[in-house]
């Protein structure tokens, strides 16, 4: 039986792990690094570059290098998050036929699942090189707060990359699984996951070989990239005040700035001050200009305090959902590269009243958890069971535009819940069931997953018919909804096939196109 790999598909970096010799192993790529930048480029000569190769040439080829595409996946082109990304991205983001954002490089338009697939395929290659055998089964991770569309897009990406995605699990859950394996104690932990693009907080209970997620919360558009963006904006402002030149319109200058900002941010985790030197960043009538600025830790911390404040708000909300207080938490586990920042560690320590646990590698732990879940599913391996929750509430839109929750967020899956609804007009013969996901009180604030009509309700005065609506989420996260008129027992149901942003045909076509990038079979 072929082995199952776990892939942490990150906003900035991705990581792959596998169980080897009974122990989870993080697989280094060809360059010897255990994480691979989630970047993709088309070089001047038309060659496709992924990972470090793409990152290295990003400055000279900024318009054709894609990064942080995870922030776009599964979103609508008109959403605020997409326009915020578009402002700073040197590559061009265009509207796709399904109102999805697509990335235009070298005259070819790429969908977000496609870009993700290119990175996933790279991770698959890394694993295949290491194991010396083909790999098809994988467990992928997503931020806990990803909605159904974003999850489905990630699944589609796996499919395009030639992977059989056994399961999509939540990143903090994976981290908890990796942390909890082999620990015999009963404890409650909080996983604080601040990655490149997203923030998640989960409260997890461990014991008796069970990892039970109590609650999860987060923000899918808050992460290290925002720190970089704030720093870039700061540098642009400084440069403009010194030299009077606006750099924001020059893609190459922006890419250089972004790179430098990321590096400076990392440096400042270890040092108090650092220099940003970017010679020949601009030209004007007076000749070439150089950017030469020094930044200290306090400046950076001042820039990001607001953003970090938001994460602590999420932490409190999550603890409340779990019915716990900070005192009930036995350990805090930090996940994601951004948690290396001293300010993050300080704020978290202060908030929980304890130093965070230092036993796990924040960059690798998610991939490790994913591969553990893979082996749990396939080999009954490791005497551990993960009880995960659904991160967003599910319900239906009521006639007055409100949202009626049936399965509230943080319910353990699989789960089934039902509720009786009725008609709102006399002689009403049909009702439309609109299945929605989200936390808004108004239906319009939430995502529409699907809709269907229950017919043949016997004519009666309003309020008399009894219509039972049942929501069911299975272990794979697939939602099915049924509505039944209790008088006639007539029943309608749908499986809410989580819709990605790609149609079946598009997916097929892209899979064919991408098949040529498969490694040639050896032997």
């Amino acid at each position, binding site marked *: 039986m072929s082995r199952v790999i776990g892939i942490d598909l990150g906003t900035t970096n991705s990581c792959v792990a596998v169980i080897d010799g009974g122990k989870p192993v993080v697989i280094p790529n060809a360059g010897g690094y255990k994480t691979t930048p989630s970047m993709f480029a088309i070089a001047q000569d038309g060659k496709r570059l992924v990972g470090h190769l793409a990152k290295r040439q990003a400055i000279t080829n900024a318009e054709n290098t894609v990064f942080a595409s995870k922030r776009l996946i599964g979103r609508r082109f008109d959403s605020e998050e997409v326009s915020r990304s578009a402002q700073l991205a040197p590559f061009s983001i265009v509207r796709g036929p399904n109102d999805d954002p697509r990335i235009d490089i070298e005259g070819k338009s790429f969908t977000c699942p496609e870009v993700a697939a290119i990175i996933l395929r790279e991770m698959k290659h890394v694993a295949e090189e290491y194991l010396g055998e083909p790999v098809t089964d994988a467990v992928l991770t997503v931020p806990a707060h990803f909605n159904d569309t974003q999850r489905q897009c990630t699944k589609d990406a796996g499919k395009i990359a030639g992977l059989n995605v056994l399961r999509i699990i939540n990143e903090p859950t994976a981290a908890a699984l990796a942390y909890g394996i082999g620990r015999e104690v009963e404890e409650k932990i909080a996983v604080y996951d601040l990655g490149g693009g997203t923030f998640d907080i989960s409260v997890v209970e461990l014991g*008796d070989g*069970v990892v039970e997620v109590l609650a999860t919360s987060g923000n899918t558009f808050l992460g290290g990239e925002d720190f970089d963006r704030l720093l870039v904006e700061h540098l642009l402002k400084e440069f403009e005040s010194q030299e009077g030149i606006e750099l924001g319109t020059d893609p190459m200058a922006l890419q250089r700035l972004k790179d430098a900002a990321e590096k400076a941010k990392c440096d400042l985790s270890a040092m108090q001050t650092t220099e940003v030197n970017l010679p020949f960043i601009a030209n004007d009538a007076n000749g070439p200009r150089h950017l030469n600025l020094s930044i200290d830790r306090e400046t950076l911390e001042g820039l990001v305090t607001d953003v970090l404040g938001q994460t602590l708000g999420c932490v409190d909300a999550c603890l409340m959902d779990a019915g716990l207080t900070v005192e009930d938490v036995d350990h805090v586990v930090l996940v994601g590269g951004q948690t290396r920042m001293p300010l993050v560690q300080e704020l978290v320590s202060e908030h929980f009243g304890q130093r965070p646990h230092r036993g796990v590698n924040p960059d690798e732990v998610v991939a490790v958890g994913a591969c553990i879940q893979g082996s749990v*599913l396939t080999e009954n391996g490791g005497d551990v069971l993960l009880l995960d929750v659904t991160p967003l509430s599910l319900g239906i839109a009521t006639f007055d535009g409100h949202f009626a929750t049936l399965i509230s967020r943080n319910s*353990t899956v*699989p789960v*089934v819940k039902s509720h009786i609804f009725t008609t709102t007009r006399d002689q009403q013969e049909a009702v439309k069931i609109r299945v929605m996901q989200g936390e808004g009180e108004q239906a319009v604030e939430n995502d529409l997953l699907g809709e269907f009509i229950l017919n043949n309700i016997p004519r009666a005065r309003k309020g008399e018919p009894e219509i039972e609506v049942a929501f069911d989420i299975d272990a794979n996260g697939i939602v099915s909804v049924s509505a039944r008129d209790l008088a006639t027992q007539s029943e309608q149901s749908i499986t809410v096939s989580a819709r990605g942003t790609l149609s079946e045909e598009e997916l097929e076509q892209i899979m064919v196109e991408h098949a040529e990038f498969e490694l040639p079979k050896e032997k």
Partner: protein
Amino acid sequence: MREVEQVPQLTAGWEDKASALTPEEGFLLSRIDGRTPWGTLRSIAGLPEERVDDCLEAWLRDGLIQLIESRKIVAVPVGELAVDSGLELPVEVQQRALEVERLLDGSYHELLGVNRDSDARSIKRSYFKLSRDFHPDRYFGRDVGPFGDLLDRIFKQVALAYELLMDPITRTELERSMSSAPSAPRVQNGQPQKFSKREWLARMRQQFKLPEEVLAERRLRARQLAESAQVAEHQCNWKEAGSCIRLAIAFDPWCDAYKQQFAAIQVEVNRLRAEELLREASGAWDSHSLSQALKLYEEVLHYRPADAEATDRAAQLCCELEEFDRAFEFAALACELQPEAAAYHLTRGRILRRNGRRERAVEALMTAQNLDPQDTRIRDELKKARQSPTRARGGKR
């Protein structure tokens, strides 16, 4: 007396012989599916057993049905699973699952194996243990056959029980409702004891549920019959159409379209019958067999209760036969149905005159004259009425 195990089956071409069935017979016929034994038909037809026997015997004689060897119907197991060592699920787990299944309808405490004194910690322990045994992930990608559904149901119910018992508010409520009916679990020795009406109904339905293939066959037959009915309709063979669609309804009583089709055919059949009767009635009148004609008009009125002309005719006939009370009733009805028709008021007036009610006769005839001042018959009748003597009320009948 027939053997109750014998199974009647419809013969080929039975449709040609089945045209003159009553609705009850149609229903009985529709239950003959080549699977249901004679004895069962007796008890499900809703008719006296002798009646069922008579019908079946008659149909057997007419070649509508034949008797075949009883076929064993493979029972579709409903909620009955058995341990199957061929599955990729340990036999012990299967047995445990079947044991827990019986607890699904019982109390949450029993399902989790805890009692009122159990603390949160032991409830959680128990939940974790059950999860480790029955969570679908434990058997991911393995062939667990029909147990897949059961495991899923068990886990969902266990998770619900855990959720309710871990919440102090719902737990208190649950335990209060338990103490009002002191430890009355609905499952004792594996026997269900107490169900709400809805649960009970659901079980009963499940029990009497026909195998889907039988239902499909019935629906198919009903559709064929409805099609024959349509063909007959096109040929204006209404009687045939009517009996076909009546059978279709017996085969598939759930389809409203057939009932509508039946109603439409019925309207047409009634119209034709009424017309036929009218023709016969006027023929009878012409040949002076008045009481025969009256009878026919009465039958017409059965089909067309709002036919003013036929009502008027009936009134005139009653009058000729000197049945004045009925005559007056018919006449009054005709006037009510079409108050603007002078002729009907004339009839009423004439009846009143002949019954010796002068004043009211004059009144009715005045109405008629107002409506149609030119009519000489009305003028003559009015003259006669004014000259007629007033007889004692309720005179000759």
